[in-house]
């Protein structure tokens, strides 16, 4: 339920101001605000400005470094590592993808491993950075454990999202951003809002029994998507973003919401692929357009809902929200009002 619609620019200004009041350096505050607001724009509010109160709380307390100085290591011609200095994951993720893209320009592909970082929000943002420069982007991130292994019931993995972006000719990139867990928080919230029980198979309790009450999920463990396959994908993300990069993995990654003594220790792996160094762009777009036409030409199983390519709905929301303002629900509106009051920043409504 939308409580208020905030214009993109003023919402961004608000985000920048509160972050700066919470000891975040101007450049890092602007970068983080851009990414949070973009997530709201594309209709992924769960990764949006809703996160400002916890981010400000952590930077204000100094558990999250608002003035990080990332340290770079040149591993190989196409591969670098960056120690995020316990900084805002959004800022670190942004500089890491920007660097992966530079490496890709020089080498065809570029890869940056991120260590000592924190929650970085929507992976879709980083891959669309690449897509807008006519590159393919991939982004992997681990997170605080709340997902079980296949056959287990205690948490081992984060929701471990993986993201993929590829340019399309009209600028509306293909965007994939998926949790490898059965269900991301946003899905659970839908059941909470509707006050309806969830189907079995989404989460289990401390004894391994199914949880169907969406309000009980916080106490439980989420299951991997589709059992063994989601487990394999969660491992893929954990290994690429955590084990390989040298970042924290599994229980070494700390909670954004529950741990106020340690940095998150999250890891990311960002990859950029410069398409034109593999085939002429014209050729790429020609093939892509044929493929998209094939997808769009599918007969929908539900006549009301035409078949879309991944990310297409996000851009519809993006364009709509850009015009009409970003919808914020009651809880987010009130949380931002409270935050604004604490930090003496006026909310933009």
């Amino acid at each position, binding site marked *: 339920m939308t409580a208020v619609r905030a214009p993109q620019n003023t919402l961004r200004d608000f985000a920048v101001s509160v972050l700066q009041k919470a000891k975040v350096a101007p450049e890092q505050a602007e970068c983080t605000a851009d990414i949070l607001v973009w997530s709201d724009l594309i209709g992924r509010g769960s990764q949006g400005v809703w996160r400002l109160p916890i981010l400000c709380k952590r930077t204000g307390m100094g558990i999250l470094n608002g003035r990080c100085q990332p340290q770079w290591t040149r591993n190989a011609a196409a591969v670098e590592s960056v120690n995020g200095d316990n900084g805002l994951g959004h800022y670190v993720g942004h500089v890491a993808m920007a660097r992966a893209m530079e490496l890709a320009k020089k080498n065809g592909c570029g890869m940056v491993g991120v260590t000592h970082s924190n929650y970085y929000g929507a992976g879709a943002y980083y891959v669309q950075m690449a897509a807008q420069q006519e590159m393919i982007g991939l982004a992997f991130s681990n997170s605080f454990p709340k997902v079980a292994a296949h056959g287990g019931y205690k948490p081992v993995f984060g929701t471990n999202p993986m993201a993929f972006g590829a340019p399309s000719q009209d600028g509306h990139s*293909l965007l994939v951003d998926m949790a490898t867990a059965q269900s991301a928080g946003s899905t659970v919230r839908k059941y909470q809002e509707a006050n309806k029980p969830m189907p079995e198979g989404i989460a289990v309790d401390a004894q391994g029994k199914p949880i169907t009450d969406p309000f009980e999920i916080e106490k439980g463990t989420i299951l991997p998507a589709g059992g063994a396959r989601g487990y394999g994908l969660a491992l893929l993300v954990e290994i690429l973003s955590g084990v390989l990069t040298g970042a924290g993995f599994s229980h070494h990654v700390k909670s954004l919401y529950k741990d106020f003594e340690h940095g998150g220790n999250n890891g990311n792996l960002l990859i950029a692929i410069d398409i034109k160094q593999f085939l002429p762009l014209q050729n790429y777009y020609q093939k892509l357009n044929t493929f998209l036409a094939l997808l769009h030409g599918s007969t929908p199983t539900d006549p009301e809902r035409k078949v879309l390519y991944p990310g297409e709905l996000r851009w519809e929301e993006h364009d709509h929200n850009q015009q009409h303002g970003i919808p914020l629900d009651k809880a987010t509106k009130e949380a931002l009002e409270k935050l604004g009051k604490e930090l003496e920043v006026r909310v933009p409504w």
Partner: protein
Amino acid sequence: MPGNTLAADKLSAYLGTLLSKLAGDTPQNQTLAETLVWHDLIGRPAQGVARFQALYHDIREGRITHPCQPALIKKNHSGARLDGDNGPGQTVATQAMDQAMTLAREAGMGLVTVGNSHDPGTAAYEVQRAARQNLVALAFGTSAPCMAAHGGSEPVLGENRLAFAAPRSTDQPLLFEMLTTAPDPAPGLLKGTAPLIQTTLQPFAGAKGYCLAVMVEILAGILSGNAEGESGDTGQCFVAIDISRFMPAAEFQDRMEELYGFIKASGDDPSSLHLPGEARWQLLAQHQQQGITLDPGTARELAALGQEHGLTWPAGDLP
């Protein structure tokens, strides 16, 4: 021992010789034979020698080029695109992964795409090969359309697979391979190189499987420059990452074992928690010791092919 059970090396030598009758002496005979036999060893017969007869006929009748000479079309410091020369998917996969591994040693990572070849039905062999050399590897492959888009009705995507492998401190790498279709097509339907699937499959886990299939289509299909929708034409993409550019291989392996420790402790019974691939390695060890038992029909087909060239089936009398 009945004649459909035989040692892996005998079987691959026999198949290699059979190929040499068609193609003359080339190292590709043995590569192709061993790749197929390996799938029987790990308990995936549908991607194994059950495919040999169809491959053999396709080669003999010129539909598949063997030996093939994949050509480098584009190369950069960390990537390359190959033309598969209409070769068997297994052979071009080996060459593409070799290229990706070489690039990874030089530049830290290598990404190689290859089009204009035939569907190998698997990518597991190549990623585990890279993992045994202390690389982390990913592979993506398209196939002929058999799966609908999420919310769609007609087949517009292949069974589009992805595979991943990472070394451990043992000689049994983590090995994960999945199709983006749900449920897996019955193995019988995948026999041979031509798709025999009549029904339209749906993506695994709805939107998730669809998203992954589209990702695979772009990385392996489009980035390989593969022609859209041409029959028998398949695209593959291989990624290798040199672990030693991040940390010593031994340290990586220790971290893998620590992660596995967390997994083992996440249920009541550690013996019911496994890493992907473990069951495959158990079967491999078992089949290496006891031999591979082929489906009797497959064994008879292969024996008959040999007879045409005066080759004796290397095991006992067939059942």
